[in-house]
């Protein structure tokens, strides 16, 4: 066992740290029209240094960084207080799917514009009657000349209020639940699309409803085989639940901030919770280092999803208890932490997955 960083990773770390120190500045919320464009500009600035997608192949805008280097990048990124990633849905959810199931044409067309945030992607999974039970979704794609026509309604679509395009699952064929679904990409400004922003607890439209009324999707925007959408979507669902959506750097940075906050407001009754938040972040960090050698299986990603989402709530709740009602710099993170146990598959669903697929308890 060895936790040391090699020379290449150390120099990459130094470069990233220095660049961030001279470029990070506060931006408006990405869930406002103006803030969204500020975040798009920030992504372009990152991309100009090939820092927006460090682990990708160079031809798509990356640096072919190792997973370890990506983790180091994330640690530096969050420690620097850099802005949230408006391109996150595309980079961490759609891109891994395209690497695994897309065509060369799709990768060449879609990934470079994603890396530069020329196209910002929203996700379109949930429907009014299909949340945790995603396989009960009802929106359809009907065959049309040279493509498909989308009909139905998606909801809780993160970033959809201001994003350019979206990806989701649609019912294309016979069969029930997981069968007959297809993974499709569509333009949020195409004729027939109506986006209704939904205001979240923080007062801003972080997600939206999407109404689809015969929205045309060309054949080249089908990802994977027609009818194989469930498998295509789930093969990279672990990216959302486990390793990539919420990198450890996010929590180690927040835990360090919490320790600083405690030093300024040392309430001994909250000491244990502060320490436990730091330990939890450290545990997730080390666990992820372990996953570099032995990648997580899908069900194992359920373990980390429950862990980081509950850690995030505990960490932010502790900060709120230290600060009281006036909590500058912590309110947004606290509110967002409360959504963690819900999105990317509720923690109840994840616990079922853990019990049935890791422990082998009967369904």
């Amino acid at each position, binding site marked *: 066992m*060895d936790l040391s960083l090699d020379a290449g990773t150390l120099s990459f770390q130094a470069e990233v740290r220095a660049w961030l120190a001279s470029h990070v500045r506060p931006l408006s919320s990405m869930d406002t029209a103006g803030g969204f464009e500020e975040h798009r500009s920030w992504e372009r600035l990152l991309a100009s240094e090939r820092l927006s997608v460090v682990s990708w192949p160079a031809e798509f805008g990356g640096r072919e960084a190792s997973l*370890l280097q990506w983790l180091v990048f994330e640690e530096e990124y969050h420690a620097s207080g850099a802005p949230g990633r408006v391109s996150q849905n595309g980079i961490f959810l759609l891109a891994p799917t395209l690497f695994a199931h897309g065509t060369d044409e799709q990768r060449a067309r879609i990934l470079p514009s994603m890396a530069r945030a020329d196209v910002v992607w929203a996700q379109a999974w949930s429907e009014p009657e299909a949340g945790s039970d995603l396989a009960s979704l009802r929106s359809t794609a009907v065959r049309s000349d040279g493509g498909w026509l989308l009909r139905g309604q998606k909801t809780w679509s993160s970033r959809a209020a201001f994003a350019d395009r979206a990806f989701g699952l649609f019912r294309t064929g016979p069969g029930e639940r997981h069968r007959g679904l297809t993974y499709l990409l569509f333009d949020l400004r195409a004729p027939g699309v109506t986006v209704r922003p939904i205001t979240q607890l923080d007062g801003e439209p972080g997600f939206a409803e999407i109404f689809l009324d015969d929205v045309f999707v060309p054949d080249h925007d089908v990802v994977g085989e027609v009818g194989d959408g469930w498998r295509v979507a789930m093969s990279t669902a672990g990216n959302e639940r486990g390793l990539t959506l919420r990198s450890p750097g996010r929590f180690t940075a927040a835990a360090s901030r919490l320790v600083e906050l405690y030093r300024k407001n040392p309430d001994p009754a909250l000491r244990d919770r502060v*320490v436990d938040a730091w330990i*939890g972040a*450290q545990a997730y960090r080390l*666990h992820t280092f372990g996953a570099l050698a032995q990648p997580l299986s899908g069900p194992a990603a359920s373990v980390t999803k429950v*862990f980081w989402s509950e850690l995030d709530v505990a960490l932010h709740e502790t900060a709120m208890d230290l600060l009281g009602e006036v909590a500058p710099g912590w309110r947004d993170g606290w509110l967002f932490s409360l959504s963690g146990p819900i999105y990317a598959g509720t923690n109840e669903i994840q*616990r079922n997955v853990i019990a049935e697929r890791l422990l082998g*308890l009967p369904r």
Partner: protein
Amino acid sequence: MMFTLSSEQTDLGGVLHGFLGAGRTDLASLGVDEVSDPVDLVVVFEELGHHAVAGPWVESLAVVPALRAEVGPGPGAGAGVGVRAETGAGAGAETGAGPGVGAGAGAGAGAGAGAGEASGTWSVAFPPLLPHAVEADHYLLVEGDTLREATPTTELPSIDPARRLHELSAGQVLATDVPAARAFDLGVLTTSAQLLGLGRAMLEMTTEHAKARAQFGKPIGQFQAVKHHLANVLIGLEMARPLVFGAAVTLSSRDVSAAKVATSDAAWQAARTALQVHGAIGYTAEHDLGRFLLQTRALRTAWGSPSMHRARVLEAL
């Protein structure tokens, strides 16, 4: 960066698992008393915990060798204390009895320790953090950086009847400037590893119970309330584990304490859940669970309480 066990380390755990599972505790026959690498020690102690092996193993295999490492070479095995694992045949796992301490340990211990030739098990106290010593053939006492011989006086009851504790009376000084802090941290680390193994064992036995035990016409493991309890136990153990191995790599007080805090909580959560899911049978002396539960509770506060270790982590941040 290579944060994973080598195949040799994985094999070591597997061999120990089979060995202990067969009811054997003569660890010296496997050469376990020659293990000194902290990661290897974690592997060994996770398995000792996995089988709830009682006895002064943390002391004999991890802490005393570290204390004696700089006292100077002696004629005995290893670092000069000649730690040899000699437990009686009936000691152990099945009976829940303490270690089968060899007869005649008392009189010869002092001289033997000094000469580095004594065989048998060793124990040590580090007052005030670790005021009492687990019963063994020979005793040492660490005060600051001074290492002394010691003799057991009053026997004290542990909440775990398989752990017998003694107050110590200080004897002659064996060495000054011993690496006391490192030895103490090795005690904390290996105790954390034991807690991890104890937690795993309780999760395994409880999962099997939940599959086999039927109520309301179906296995209780089919009820979501039970599933979610067990999923939480798995999450706690799975996420405590890397802290233990991380601490073995760095051996910093901060990391060792973090591992102890996390494994204490995860293992105790495993114990409570195990008892709840087993129901009344788990609360009987007939069932094996109690042995694991009681040892977990004792080790949770041995080698420093969770509160003391949280304070150490915060201090280091």
